[in-house]
């Protein structure tokens, strides 16, 4: 297996590999997410209770789903970086974290916008809202720690440890918050208990979820390429690469 993985430890190879994949992944994201959103917003039937305002679900639910999975991916990357001391894993950390943070923010923001007409409040100290907010704090902590060090390598290692500590904490936080909520108030509001959805709404939602997966991958690939360039700026291959592309743009 190592023989097979060996070439991918080289930043140049990964850079070009991601470059080859990026158009496909980004294209798939644009196509599937675009299609899913158009389908959901224009063609799916309106909800009998919520009317048209439920349509924000097509952004809210996928963003919320991937905010958590991106964090798990972040922690796995951090673990890889710690165990095998791969510098690429350190860089990937910097590529992944902001994407997850933005997804978390989107989930919170769309949730608030949706909550106002439906529940009559922007914010409720509901278990799921609260744990999502804490997830955002964890992301911000990882990012802040990463950027606090002037040496990126140390910053990535420190942020990796914090991400791992955070991922151990996530289940504890989740259960404690749920328990706390049920103690204080009965079920006055529950966030979107998955109802038996009609297929005409479910399929666009699933399409959007798939589209968000590709979107996350495309963003991470792109950020990873930039990160590789930034870290390897002094290497000859980067200079050749950048020189080449700038000549190309001049020619165009």
């Amino acid at each position, binding site marked *: 297996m190592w023989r097979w993985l060996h070439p991918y430890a080289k930043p140049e190879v990964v850079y070009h590999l991601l470059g080859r994949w990026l158009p496909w992944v980004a294209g798939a994201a644009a196509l599937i997410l675009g299609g899913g959103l158009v389908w959901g917003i224009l063609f799916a039937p309106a909800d009998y209770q919520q009317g048209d305002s439920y349509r924000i679900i097509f952004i809210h639910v996928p963003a919320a789903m991937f905010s958590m999975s991106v964090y798990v991916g972040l922690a796995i990357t951090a673990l890889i970086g710690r165990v095998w001391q791969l510098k690429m894993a350190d860089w990937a950390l910097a590529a992944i974290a902001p994407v997850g943070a933005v997804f978390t923010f989107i989930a919170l923001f769309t949730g608030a916008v949706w909550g106002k007409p439906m529940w009559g409040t922007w914010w409720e100290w509901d278990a799921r809202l609260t744990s999502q907010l804490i997830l955002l704090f964890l992301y911000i902590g990882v990012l802040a720690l990463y950027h606090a060090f002037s040496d990126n390598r140390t910053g990535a290692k420190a942020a990796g440890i914090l991400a791992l500590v955070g991922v151990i904490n996530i289940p504890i936080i989740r259960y404690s918050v749920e328990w*706390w909520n049920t103690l204080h108030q009965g079920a006055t509001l529950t966030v979107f208990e998955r109802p038996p959805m009609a297929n005409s709404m479910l399929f666009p939602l699933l399409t959007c979820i798939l589209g968000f997966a590709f979107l996350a991958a495309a963003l991470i690939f792109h950020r990873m390429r930039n990160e590789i360039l930034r870290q390897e700026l002094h290497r000859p291959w980067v200079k050749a690469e950048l020189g080449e592309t700038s000549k190309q743009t001049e020619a165009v």
Partner: protein
Amino acid sequence: MKPASNWQALRTVMQRDLMVVMRRRSDVLNPLLFVLMVVSLFPLAVGPGPDILGRMAAGVIWVAALLSALLGSERLFREDFLDGTLEQLTLQPQPLALLSFAKIMVHWLLSGLPLVILAPLCALLLKLPLEGWLALIATLAVGTPILSAVTAIGAALTVSLGRGGALLSLLLLPLFIPLLIFATGAVEAALVGTDAWPQVLLLAGLSLLTLLLAPFAVAASIRVSVH
């Protein structure tokens, strides 16, 4: 020369740290005075009525404890980092996690334990009804080790930065949320007359788990910071 046994190393580090801190007692006293002041600010801010104060008491005391843990976190590793002691510790034949555990324990002895002792005074100031006192002291006793252990992780991560303060609170406060929830939940349960023990025992379990795992995270963080 035979290297010291793990047990000897643990004891030596603890003794040394205790001695260092005892030579500069204000480091221990200041966070405690901070807690007292925060606690006495609240009656001035929200009014001295016993009903509102009593309901808030456990939360206020716990939040003050969290903040004071952050305030006192500097002294965990900063001096040792600056004078090279931390680097020497990483070179010891004994596992660094064990030595980190010693440092965590000393930190708890000098910041957590005094808080437990101070708790009745704070409860008195905030007019916590008598039913909640035992629960408050119990949660502080089993919860403050978590504070020390998790604070040690953050302090070790940021020790080489020189400006821990605000960053440290950003990193650590989200991790303290379960602690806060269980601790105040226990006191609240005691106040309404139900059993507070489930929460206290849960906290004790969390505390043991944290004390088991945190030294390894601290050791890894020290190695990152020293290099």
